């Protein structure tokens, strides 16, 4: 007990000996802070724009300016390989092997003529008209294995591809579609839902009109008699016997189906409106419209 008492007395003694709180040992917190008025919104700082030079002053140079160097974009006097790049047509390739695989896996029905809409409706061929895809380029990969009798309309095909299709008794036509028609062919159902009249298909542009009028390319504007002559010529060149087609053939109607140069869809004429709900087709009777849509 006495030890505790003694301890507290000692503590009090020590406290008395400690220095008092006085002006000499407290901080002078009450003095007014010296106010420095900086220039600008944040007191003259740099607004996070760096320390020196053009960056700090935020005088952004024009695009491509290289602070006095001869700029890259002016260094070469002209770039001819880009000339007219925004008009150039692209043809999205599809090989005969891929086409045969689609036929084998029942994605394409060969008892109907095949066109771009058929290919797009499979969901396996992604046409992008916004990237100037002017249709399908049927390539000759798989010419040896291809063995289906089809009536196909493509936008680009070479000699070997044409031969591979005609060897099996099929028919190929190269047809041009303008970019507005390609949007319709890409998704016909979406177009019919809009309830708009089917537009006219435009004629080929200047750069491709010769391709589509030539019978060698089976162009849709070529003379049919010249095409049948060229079919024979190609069969002799590639060394196969051209299968003859008679009217008694069960595929005759399918193989002979062609589009009009102004027609986008098989069997549907420009100016018609398709009603998917009522399952009706509306055809204009107005003379002005008939005059406009006629081929």
């Amino acid at each position, binding site marked *: 007990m006495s030890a505790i008492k003694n301890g507290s007395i000692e503590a009090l003694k020590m406290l008395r000996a400690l220095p008092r709180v006085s002006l000499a040992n407290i901080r002078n917190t009450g003095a007014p802070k010296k106010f420095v008025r900086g220039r600008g919104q944040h007191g003259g700082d740099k607004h996070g724009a760096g320390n020196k030079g053009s960056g700090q002053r935020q005088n952004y140079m024009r695009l491509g300016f290289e602070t006095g160097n001869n700029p890259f974009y002016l260094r070469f006097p002209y770039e001819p390989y880009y000339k007219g790049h925004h008009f150039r047509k692209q043809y999205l390739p599809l090989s005969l092997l891929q086409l045969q695989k689609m036929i084998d*896996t029942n994605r394409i029905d060969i008892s109907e003529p095949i066109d771009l809409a058929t290919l797009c*409706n499979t969901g*396996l061929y992604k046409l992008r008209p916004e990237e100037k895809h002017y249709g399908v380029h049927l390539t000759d990969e798989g010419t040896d*294995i291809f*063995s*289906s009798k089809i009536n196909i309309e493509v936008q680009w095909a070479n000699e070997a591809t044409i031969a591979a299709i005609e060897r099996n008794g099929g028919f190929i036509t190269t047809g041009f579609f303008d970019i507005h028609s390609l949007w319709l062919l890409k998704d016909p159902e979406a177009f019919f839902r809009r309830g708009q009249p089917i537009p006219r298909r435009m004629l080929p542009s200047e750069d491709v009109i010769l391709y589509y009028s030539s019978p060698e390319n089976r162009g849709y504007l070529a003379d049919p008699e010249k095409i049948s002559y060229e079919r024979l010529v190609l069969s002799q060149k590639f060394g196969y016997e051209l299968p003859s087609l008679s009217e008694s053939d069960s595929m005759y109607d399918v193989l002979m189906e062609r589009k009009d140069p102004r027609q986008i*869809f098989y069997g549907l004429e420009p100016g018609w409106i398709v009603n998917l709900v009522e399952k009706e087709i509306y055809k*204009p009777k107005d003379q002005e419209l008939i005059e406009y849509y006629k081929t």
Partner: protein
Amino acid sequence: MISFRRTLSSLCSKDKRLWDVSSSEKIGRQYSSFIGSKLYNPDDKVDFDVSKDPKEWKYVSRLLPAKFIPDPVVKDNFPSGWKPQSVDAVSGPYYVRRSRNHMVPVYLTIGQRGIKKRTTIRHILGDIWLFSTDLKKYIEDQVKHDVGIKVDEVGCRIVLRGDYLHYAQQFILEKGM
């Protein structure tokens, strides 16, 4: 001032859209612009024929895409090299399901600018470990070197280190899967 007001009133009274145009101009008329457009009269009805002919509707219906991926039809031969699955393939210790497009689910991924090549086989059902040993043996017998293989039992997939797309496809097709 009076003359100016007269000009203004004469301008206001004249609606440019009411100008009569000949039939040839009507054809080239631009309905997208205000001046070229006709005033809309609700009483004017455009005359049209309604066709419910099923022969014509056939051309519309074949343009509508299928709602589902069709099942392949059994044929004598498939020139493209594609093969349907055999019926008795299911009874084996393992089974590889086809993709939704009826293709063999073997895929090649190339990464790191062509350095990293991985062959992935998906949808492996049943004994995946037996499948991996069989596949490894099948490939190594042909290529005569060791093949790295990774088995993902939970994901039902196998990843091969390297480009063995053809061998893996052939292995699966030979088993009738």
